[in-house]
């Protein structure tokens, strides 16, 4: 890694300067501040990381800089933002437009929805380029292609003609970065650029940002909750909490000697690899969930008769079990079938093979069996915004499972909802808010609270903490752990964050292309990874230590082999061989 301590532009005039910024939201109860009195400078070629609690106002701050706060309720209510000599806060929209993209660009937190679904990727790039440079279409296309090549998207020429939905999340994020790259802005704001990505792709993206900075001297405002990423990327760090700056300083200094109490907590909460503790013998508690040779296939139709011609073999012959009080983690790259297993376990996706949860077969669901299953198995979805009803207050949504299962009266249900909110680090005062009024991480917590409402026997948590800052993540993980111990809840934990996985799991399964390639206890997997794929995953994990030396791993082109096969094709199964007690590794793969 490059030396982040080069204070190249620290002394020079800042490109971006924020002084005393305040942002407020108008509510029924009057103006409520979201961000208050934030000040910082950003120099050329510098990377400033904003870390901090989820919901602390990181995204709002960056949107305020871009002049893109969500209308009509949220507005800048004080302070000044300067870009070079230009005061952005008072700039008319028409002039602001000229600066956007040209001098400041932004990569948004949600890559899934930030690209126009009805325009090809190429057109969106070309358009951005031509908006700021008087280039011919052809020249702009060449430039766009170069940018896509630069972000190492596989087959860039073909991607130009594809639509966003044809790309995976990671690819889309790279397109967003390519766009920023092509524009060569002075300042790049990257809001959680890697949250949605699995570790291997995350690695790629971080490398790209660094390249961009090196070649164009771009100043980067990097927003992230991942202290590993901060340590690897940033020159300086701002730590935010509740809309205010807690601490600001050089990255080494902050990691080495945090001043603010919150920063200390934050750093203490960072899960680190290899700290998972010692091997513990497998528990003998009763099995809560048992999967035997589970297969899930999605039909793809085509041809004259609209018959099924191909199938996505999303899950292929997966077996494992989870005992009461045990946490089983599934890791693997994007698209390997993790979420599919999760959905199958709560009866949302039809499957072959058997899944038994608390002695109940998950299969064709009647209303009754679904209801009784829901009392024992709950899922926290990967995409929290999508999993919440945008038209219902979160309080009602958290209390809803209780209502469905006829528990308590209105008052007790509300009290329970308030209690759950509290447990996931939110306040009861927010019960009457709607989902869009929360930050990404807050929504995820709301989903967790809802899943916990019924105190189920099994919780399936699909990337449930990935959008959370480490301290909240730690709190949530603690909460999950406490619940697990208290009620002997079994948990299926899906994550791309190896450190978290190591932290929380009892057992781990590594998936690749719908199959498990390695399975074993935490100690076995992390201490003695056998399968080459497992090893590659581990190597890609960023380390939350600015001084750490990152091993060089080969960059890979972004397209992974796909699990689509012709109908009737026989997919070769991995043969799992025991290398130790309970540690199985695929032989052929």
């Amino acid at each position, binding site marked *: 890694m490059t030396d982040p301590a080069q204070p190249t532009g620290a002394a020079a005039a800042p490109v971006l300067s924020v002084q005393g910024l305040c942002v407020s*939201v*108008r*509510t*029924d109860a009057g103006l409520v501040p979201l961000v208050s009195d934030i000040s910082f400078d950003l120099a050329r070629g510098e990377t400033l990381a904003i870390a901090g609690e989820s919901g602390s106002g990181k995204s709002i701050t960056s949107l305020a800089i871009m002049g893109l706060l969500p209308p*009509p*309720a949220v507005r800048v209510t004080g302070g000044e933002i300067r870009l070079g000599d230009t005061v952005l806060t008072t700039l008319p929209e028409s002039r602001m437009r000229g600066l956007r993209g040209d001098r400041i660009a932004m990569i948004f937190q949600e890559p899934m929805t930030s690209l126009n679904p009805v325009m090809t990727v190429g057109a969106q790039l070309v358009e951005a380029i031509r908006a700021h440079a008087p280039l011919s279409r052809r020249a702009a296309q060449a430039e766009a292609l170069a940018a896509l090549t630069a972000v190492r998207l596989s087959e860039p020429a073909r991607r130009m003609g594809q639509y966003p939905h044809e790309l995976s999340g990671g690819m889309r994020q790279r397109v967003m970065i390519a766009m920023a790259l092509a524009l060569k802005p002075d300042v790049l704001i990257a809001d959680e650029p890697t949250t949605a990505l699995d570790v291997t792709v995350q690695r790629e993206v971080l490398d790209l940002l660094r390249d961009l900075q090196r070649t164009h001297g771009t100043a980067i405002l990097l927003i992230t909750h991942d202290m590993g990423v901060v340590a690897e990327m940033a020159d300086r760090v701002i730590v935010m909490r509740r809309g205010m700056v807690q601490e600001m300083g050089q990255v080494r200094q902050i990691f080495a000697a945090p001043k603010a109490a919150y920063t200390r907590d934050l750093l203490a909460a960072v899960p680190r690899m290899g700290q998972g503790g010692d091997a513990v013998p497998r528990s003998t508690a009763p099995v809560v969930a048992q999967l035997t040779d589970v297969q899930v296939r999605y039909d793809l139709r085509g041809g004259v008769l609209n018959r099924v011609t191909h199938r996505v073999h999303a899950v292929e012959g997966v077996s494992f079990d989870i005992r009461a009080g045990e946490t089983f983690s599934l890791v693997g790259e994007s698209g390997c079938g993790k979420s599919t297993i999760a*959905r199958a376990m*709560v*009866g*949302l996706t039809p499957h072959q093979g058997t899944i038994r949860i608390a002695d109940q077969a998950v299969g064709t669901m009647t*209303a009754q069996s*679904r*209801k*009784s*299953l*829901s*009392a024992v*198995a*709950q*899922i926290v*979805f990967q*995409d929290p915004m*999508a*999993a*919440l*009803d*945008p*038209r*219902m207050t979160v309080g*009602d949504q958290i209390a*809803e*499972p209780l*209502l*469905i*299962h006829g528990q308590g009266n*209105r008052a007790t249900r509300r009290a329970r909802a308030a209690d759950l909110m509290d447990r996931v680090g939110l306040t009861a005062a927010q019960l009457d808010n*709607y*989902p*869009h*009024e929360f930050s990404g991480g807050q929504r995820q917590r709301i*989903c967790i609270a*809802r899943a916990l409402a*019924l105190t189920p026997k099994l919780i399936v948590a699909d990337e449930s903490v990935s959008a959370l800052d480490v301290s909240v993540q730690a709190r949530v993980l603690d909460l999950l752990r406490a619940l697990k111990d208290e009620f002997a809840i079994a948990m299926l934990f899906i994550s791309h964050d190896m450190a978290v996985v190591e932290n929380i799991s009892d057992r781990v399964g590594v998936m690749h292309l719908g199959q498990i390639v390695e399975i074993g206890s935490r100690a076995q997997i992390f201490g003695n990874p056998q399968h080459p794929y497992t090893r590659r995953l581990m190597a890609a994990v960023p380390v939350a230590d600015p001084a750490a030396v990152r091993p060089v791993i080969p960059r890979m082109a972004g397209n992974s082999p796909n699990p689509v096969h012709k109908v009737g094709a026989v997919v070769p199964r991995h043969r799992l061989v025991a290398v130790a007690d309970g540690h199985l590794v695929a032989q052929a793969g």
Partner: protein
Amino acid sequence: MTAMTATRVTDGVWRRLRRRPLALIGMALVATIVLAALLAPWIAPYDPFEQHFDGLTLYGEPLPPGGAFLLGTDLLGRDLFSRLLYGARTSLIIGVVANGAALLIGTVIGLTAGFFQGWIGTVLMRFTDLMMAFPALLLAICLAAVLQPSLWIVAFVIAMVNWVQTARVIYTETTALAARDFIAAQRTLGAGTGRILFRHILPHLVPMIIVWGTLGISTTVLLEATLSYLGVGVQPPMPSWGNIIFENQTYFQSAPWLVFWPGLAIVVLALAFNLVGDALRDVLDPALRGSD
């Protein structure tokens, strides 16, 4: 959702509605029209059916507004104002009841078909397609002619014809909603079909229902008039705003008041409901909280 929670939500809605002047105007207009219709016998200066001897000129022309007849007289020398008051009854029944019924049928069918994709959905949607393939007016004419015209039959026919578009639109929307994760989330919480449909999908359809519902007021009122005009609608001398227009539309140059006032009445009725509907939609839209 218990009654109490419902009250809490409606309380909030009502509180926010009250703060919108346009919504208040709309509600006042609706109330006025309803009252006018109910109190017509007491407010109306004349019997709406009486053909006044002095209501026509010597050459049989209607009298313009002013004078003894506030809004003028019609081609039979009847008091237009009184007829408009009584006509409000018919038009409210058509525009609100028949249109409401159409909306309800359309919503239920669209919702059911969109949600239960299986054979129920297929059957319902094919049926909707079939109904949609009819030229609406022709269907209405045939139905009304076969069933013998009367106000309630006309209302029924209009409901039967008008639900189709709503069903189609609701269907598309429901299919999209049903595929969303938060609906899947509801399933895993054990929510029953009814709950998912009415608590989670329906609220998302409200804006669309409001748009179609308010636009439907004008169209149904005019459809009734077309049917009357074709002899399969409400029978004379029963007034309705639509048929007053249709009876007199060829006279719109020589006696513009005969078209203008009932036309205005229809616009006001539709607009009043729309003001309320729009405000309701905005108030129910969480993304717009804090904008007023």
